[in-house]
């Protein structure tokens, strides 16, 4: 028995002696990070973390305490019991079949432990030579085990994945790329994107066209654009009264071709490479409330149809939890944070008639802009469907080719327009995104007004 499993027994016994009901979530995680600066691995960081969260129900109230000190079981239980005296009321457990039929975790490909990180970092650094740009970045290998226990159940799940974050720096551009994969290989999309960036680096500075023009959004910008809607569909925003869409579920909002669905990665064949770097996005069998994670359609044919919930937000809204209650997120469980609704595999899609390759989308733009990333777009997320901020990196498109690097400027995009009446198409390939929420986003083309 591992030291943590042994400790869980102690906590369970102590909690059972002092509370009517109890739940434990414990996380063990090992991270190894190699930082790459100017093509050379220049720093290694490693972290081992074991942390435990205990929730007790006592006299109709809930008390919660977390700790990294697993040797002080009595202190942990005492804190939780004390908090219950002044804690929120306990809601009846609404979840029939919690922990029913957990999905089997994907088996990660074997690797060489922490040496795999070094190998990947060297390959990332080597892209500096092939792309002709200065390459910085980090490669992270994470192993995570999550233990859940309650009086009538106990489960353990584990996962392992690599995160690759790269920044290609030229004389005029700084182009980021990020992905998650289960195999210690660099995704093909990364080198392809860096090659494109190298071709754009020498382009002249330019202003956006003054009149009507097309807008091609890269996955990072699509993520920013969608964040207000994703946040407004979050059960936390709904219960806080700050969701602009909560009272309008079932009403048309986006183009009827568009759908948004939270679901796990498609299982890959054993020898298939993870070309896009999306295969490492996590999809646990159950959330941190113990509710099974199941695919959920959020937007169907342009219509927001449902919010996503933790047990707590679902109870507050009088609806069923959807398996989205996580401490941190599925990629990085943080026991010290409260369980809140989180999307871990949101995917934007469009009808088959509105899908093309990135090259096709670009070739179809006579005059327009390619928006790689936006700054400040998350600031009012959930309050308004308008994303206002500043263009961080963008390019001028003329006659189907990238022709200049846009000067920084303020920008405001209304997602009801860009993904509504101006929507034209999405790319057939998607990249991983993760900030506030995680998923796979395509390039999106919106036409002129």
């Amino acid at each position, binding site marked *: 028995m591992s030291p943590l499993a042994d400790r869980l027994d102690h906590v369970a016994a102590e909690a059972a002696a002092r509370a009517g009901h109890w739940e434990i979530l414990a996380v063990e995680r090992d991270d190894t990070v190699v930082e790459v600066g100017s093509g050379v691995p*220049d720093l*290694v*960081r*490693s972290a081992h973390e074991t942390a435990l969260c205990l929730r007790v129900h006592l006299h109709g109230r809930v008390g919660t305490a977390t700790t*990294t*000190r697993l040797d002080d079981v009595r202190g942990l239980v005492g804190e939780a019991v004390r*908090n219950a005296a*002044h804690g929120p009321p306990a809601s009846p457990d609404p979840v029939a079949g919690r922990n029913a039929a957990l999905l089997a975790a994907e088996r990660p490909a074997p690797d060489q432990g922490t040496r795999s990180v070094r190998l990947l970092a060297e390959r990332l650094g080597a892209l500096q030579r092939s792309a002709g740009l200065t390459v910085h970045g980090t490669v992270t290998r994470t192993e995570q085990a999550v233990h859940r226990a309650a009086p009538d159940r106990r489960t353990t799940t584990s996962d392992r994945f690599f995160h690759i974050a790269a920044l290609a720096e030229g004389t005029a551009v700084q182009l980021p790329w990020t992905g998650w994969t289960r195999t210690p290989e660099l995704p093909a999309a990364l080198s392809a994107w860096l090659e494109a960036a190298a071709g754009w680096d020498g382009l002249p500075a330019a202003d956006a066209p003054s009149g009507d023009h097309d807008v091609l959004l890269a996955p990072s910008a699509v993520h920013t654009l969608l964040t207000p809607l994703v946040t407004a569909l979050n059960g936390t925003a709904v219960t*806080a009264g700050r969701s602009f869409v909560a009272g309008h579920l079932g009403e048309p909002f986006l183009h009827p071709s568009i759908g948004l669905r939270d679901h796990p990665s498609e299982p890959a064949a054993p020898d298939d490479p993870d070309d896009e770097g999306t295969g490492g996005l996590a999809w646990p069998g159950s959330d941190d409330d113990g509710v099974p994670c199941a695919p959920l359609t959020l937007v169907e044919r342009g219509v927001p149809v449902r919010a996503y919930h933790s047990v707590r937000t679902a109870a507050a809204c009088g609806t069923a939890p959807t398996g989205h209650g996580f401490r941190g997120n599925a990629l990085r469980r943080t026991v010290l944070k409260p369980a809140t609704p989180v999307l871990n595999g949101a995917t934007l899609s469009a009808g088959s008639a509105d899908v093309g390759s990135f090259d096709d989308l670009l070739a179809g733009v006579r005059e327009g802009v390619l928006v790689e990333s936006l700054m400040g777009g998350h*600031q009012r997320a959930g309050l308004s469907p308008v994303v206002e901020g500043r263009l961080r990196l963008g390019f001028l498109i003329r006659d189907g080719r990238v022709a200049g690097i846009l000067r920084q400027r303020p920008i405001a995009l209304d997602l009801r327009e860009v993904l509504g009446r101006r929507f034209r198409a999405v790319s057939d390939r998607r990249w991983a995104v993760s900030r506030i929420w995680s998923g796979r986003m395509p390039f999106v083309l919106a036409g002129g007004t």
Partner: protein
Amino acid sequence: MLLTGGSPALFRDVGLRADDYAEVRVERARTVDLVWRGDGLESSVTSRDEGCCARVIGRSGSAFASDTAMDAGPVLRRAARDAVELGCAAGRLAAHRPYRDDRPGEIGELAETVGLAEKVELLGAYHAAALAAHTGVTGALVYYRESVADVELFTSEGTGVSYRRRDLTLQITVYADGGAARTAGSVSAGSGGDFSVVRGLGPDVEAAVATAVDLRAAPVVAPGEYDVVCDGPLAGIWAHETIGHLAEADHHLGDAPLQRSLAPGRRLGPSMLTITDHPGRPGARGFVPVDDEGTAGSPVELLRDGVVTRPRLHDRSTAAAFREDPTGNARALNFRHPPLPRLRTIAIAPGAASEEEMIGGVARGLLARGVLGGQTDRAGFTFLPAECREIRDGEVRGRVRGVVLSGDVLGAFAAIDAIGREQWRGDTSASCGKQGQNGLPVSSWAPMLRLRGIRVTSG
């Protein structure tokens, strides 16, 4: 008392070379989080977060390791092993002035001396008052956090220091239904552990409700260029996000254009503009008398009379790279992170203008108060003020909504033409984020500023 008793044996045993540097940091933190959302109290959580970390910097490589276990030996050995086996680039550190002063600063009403029941009653009353204040209110969020961390740092050079860090924040946000969007009003308070800053906030909650409710009928601001008068809290965060982050020395490494932009002697702003990063004062969130490399903090005057003076805030590594002195800015969020050059308390020196003079000199502009959000990428900035009123012909008029201020970081200093005579020195719940270390406590001291011709967009 240091956990090791200051014994150098720990460092000898891992086989460091004579010129290798190693340090161990041990941290014991306790946190209380209280959240009200929906109809009432959502969660009451206490956390005990303890662990240690080690950093090795030497000829064979550099590495950082952390662990929630409190035994520093294995963590130091792991860092030493990784530095060699993973073969990363070597590093070096500048000599520094170790912190010696361990006099505790005075703090008003220590948060940990106030019982949980009293906190729940006081803060819960704010939430209930916000919900009951007006039928247009759709919800309210009250988020309270307090933490106390005891840190011990010891190094292979023989440095051994221990220090206590306290932090306290309260954010109250009130939401109202503004049709296609939600409107918001907020109360933001913070301190270095003094609970008294969250007492007596009833009038502030009422003002937040009035802001959220009034904004429903307020016109959306017309995009364009405006003269903007910022209050102290907004001016302080603007200084933090612009010159403050630009001055963090790790950003200067390999960035010749930035080094030229902030070359000493270059004029950035008007002659009455002086900005300093300061170790702060006891009881404030940005009080950092000693940094996480054990360096004693000292003020760094970034701009004097509008001219760049000392453009870099250092940790020992960046100080070595630039052959300058460490400034006491090496800060780590907790034991899970290595220290980085970070801001402490950014201070804009007061000027000579009264509020009436600043507003009276504006024909078409905005009076902006507080911050709902803000971001910079070191080239540009965007800010969402918490509240904006129109100024016409020197008179403050009604609220406008949707205001987003943006501009070039370096260009904005030249836009300042008046500085208020009273320097605001409160704390808010706004914290600093950098390279995954988000939520670092900081302070700002700032008077009102008037900026001419700031770009405003609407959202």
